[in-house]
C-alpha cells in the first residue's frame, strides 16, 4: 500500500519544472516569468520565432545559462549554482545541440564512452559494449572508429544522441537539433528522435520542424518575446491557435 502511495507521489513530481524563471541579457528581458513542467514520458516541443527565448530556456535547464530569479527543479531537486551537485544533476539531463558538439579529437565510440567512464565510473569494457548497442540503435555503429569530421552532419547528430543516451538520462533536451543539417539529413535525425519518444523518453525539444511537433509532441509550447504565449496539444495548437501571435507565426511559416 505504501509502495503504491510512493509510486503515485513520484509520478506527480515533474522530471523538469521551472517556476517563475526570469533572465536578462543586459537590458534585454529574454525570459519572462517562465513556468513549465515536463512529466515523465512527455515530449514537450517549444516553437516560436527566432529571438523568442526558446533556446535560452532550453539551456537554462541544465544551467548552461544562468537565471536571474525563479527556480529550476529536476525531479523535485533544485538545480544548484555550481560544484559537484550541479555536475551530478547535469549528468541526469541529456543535451543535444544544434551544432552536434562532438569531441573533435575522439573517435565516435570514445565520444560515447567518455561520460559513462568518467562520470558514471563504468569500466571501459562495459561502457564500450553499451556504446556499440546505442550506436547501432541510432544506425551509426559502422562508423564507431572514425572521428567526427569524417561523418556527415546527420550521422554526427545521431552520435550526439547516442552520447546523451549513454548517460541514462531522466530527460533529454534538444536545442534545435536539425537546424544545422542539410535537408536530406533532417529526416534521419527526426526518425531517431521519434523512435525515442515512442519508447517513452522524456524530451524537451526546441525546433522549427512543425511536422515533428504535430506527430510526436505531447504538448506544444509557443514562445514569443521571452514569454510562453500558448501551451496546448499539437492538434489544438496547430488547428485552433488561440493567440494572435501564434496565428501570425503559423501563417508566416505556412506561407511558403
Amino acid at each position, binding site marked *: 500500500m505504501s509502495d503504491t502511495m510512493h509510486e503515485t507521489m513520484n509520478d506527480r513530481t515533474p522530471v523538469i519544472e521551472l517556476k517563475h524563471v526570469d533572465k536578462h541579457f543586459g537590458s534585454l528581458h529574454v525570459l519572462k516569468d517562465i513556468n513549465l513542467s515536463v512529466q515523465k514520458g512527455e515530449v514537450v516541443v517549444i516553437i516560436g520565432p527566432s529571438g523568442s527565448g526558446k533556446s535560452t530556456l532550453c539551456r537554462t535547464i541544465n544551467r*548552461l545559462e544562468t537565471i536571474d530569479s525563479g527556480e529550476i527543479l529536476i525531479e523535485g531537486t533544485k538545480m544548484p549554482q555550481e560544484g*559537484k551537485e550541479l555536475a551530478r544533476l547535469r549528468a541526469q*539531463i541529456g*543535451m543535444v545541440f544544434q551544432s*552536434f558538439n562532438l569531441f573533435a*579529437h575522439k573517435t565516435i565510440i570514445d565520444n560515447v564512452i*567518455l561520460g559513462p567512464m568518467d562520470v558514471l565510473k563504468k569500466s571501459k569494457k562495459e561502457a564500450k559494449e553499451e556504446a556499440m548497442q546505442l550506436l547501432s540503435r541510432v544506425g551509426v555503429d559502422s562508423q564507431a572508429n572514425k572521428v567526427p569530421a569524417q561523418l556527415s552532419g546527420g550521422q554526427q547528430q545521431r552520435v550526439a544522441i547516442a552520447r546523451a543516451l549513454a548517460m541514462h538520462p531522466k530527460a533529454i533536451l534538444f536545442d534545435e537539433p536539425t537546424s544545422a543539417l542539410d535537408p536530406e539529413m533532417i529526416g534521419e535525425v527526426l526518425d531517431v528522435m521519434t523512435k525515442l519518444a515512442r519508447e517513452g523518453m522524456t524530451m524537451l525539444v526546441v525546433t522549427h520542424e512543425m511536422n515533428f511537433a504535430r506527430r510526436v509532441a505531447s504538448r506544444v509550447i509557443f514562445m514569443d518575446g521571452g514569454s510562453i504565449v500558448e501551451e496546448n496539444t499539437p492538434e489544438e495548437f496547430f488547428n485552433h491557435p488561440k493567440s494572435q501571435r501564434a496565428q501570425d507565426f503559423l501563417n508566416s511559416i505556412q506561407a511558403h
Partner: protein
Amino acid sequence: MGIKELLSQYGDQYIQALFTTWKLTAFSFAIAFVIGVAVTVMRISPVQPLRVFAEIYIQIFRNIPGASLLMLLVYALPYLDVLLSYFVCVLIAASLIPSAFCSEYLMAGINTIGTGQIEAARSLGLSFMQIIRRVVIPQALRSSVLPLTNLLVSTMLTTALASQVPMNPRDLTGLVAHINTHAVGGVTAFLISALLYCATAVVIGQVGNMIDRKVRILR
C-alpha cells in the same frame, strides 16, 4: 686556426658541449612544458586570483630578456641567501621564459576548441578538471605540436645564455667563447657550433612534423 686544427684540438670538447646543450635543452623544455600547462590551466580556471597570477606570470616571463633574468638569478639571489649553481641558474632562466611562450601556444590551441564542445562536456556532468584533462588539454596539445616544436628549437637557442656564466661543463656557445679567449678560433669556432645547433634543429623540426601529421585533429 683552421677547421682541422680546431677539431683536433677541441673536438672532444665540442662533443661534450653539444651534449651539455642537449641536456640543458631537454630539461628546460620539460620544465617549461609542465609549467606552461599548469599556468594555462590557471588562466582558464574559474578562480580569479589564479587567473590574475597566471597573467602576471606570463607578462613577466614573456617580456624579460633572458640575459637579464640570468643575471638576476646569478647576482641577485645570493643577497636572499639563495645560492644556486650556474647550471641551475641557466636551467631556470631557460625554462621560465619558454614556459610563458608554451602557455601562449597552448592558449591559441585552446581557442580552436569550440565552446560547444565544452558545453557538451559540462552537460555530460564532467567536472572542470575532467573537462581540462579529457577535452581541453588533449586538443590544445594536438593542435599546437608545430608551435611547440618551434619552442623546443628556441629553447635550445636560449640555453646559449650559459655562455654568460662560467658554467662547467660548457655548452656550445660557452665553448666558443672559451676557445676565442684562449686561442684565435675566430668565426670558424662559431661556425662549428652553429652547424651543431642547426643539425639539432633540423632533426627536431622533422620529428615535430612527423608527430603533427600523426596527431593533427581533423576538423
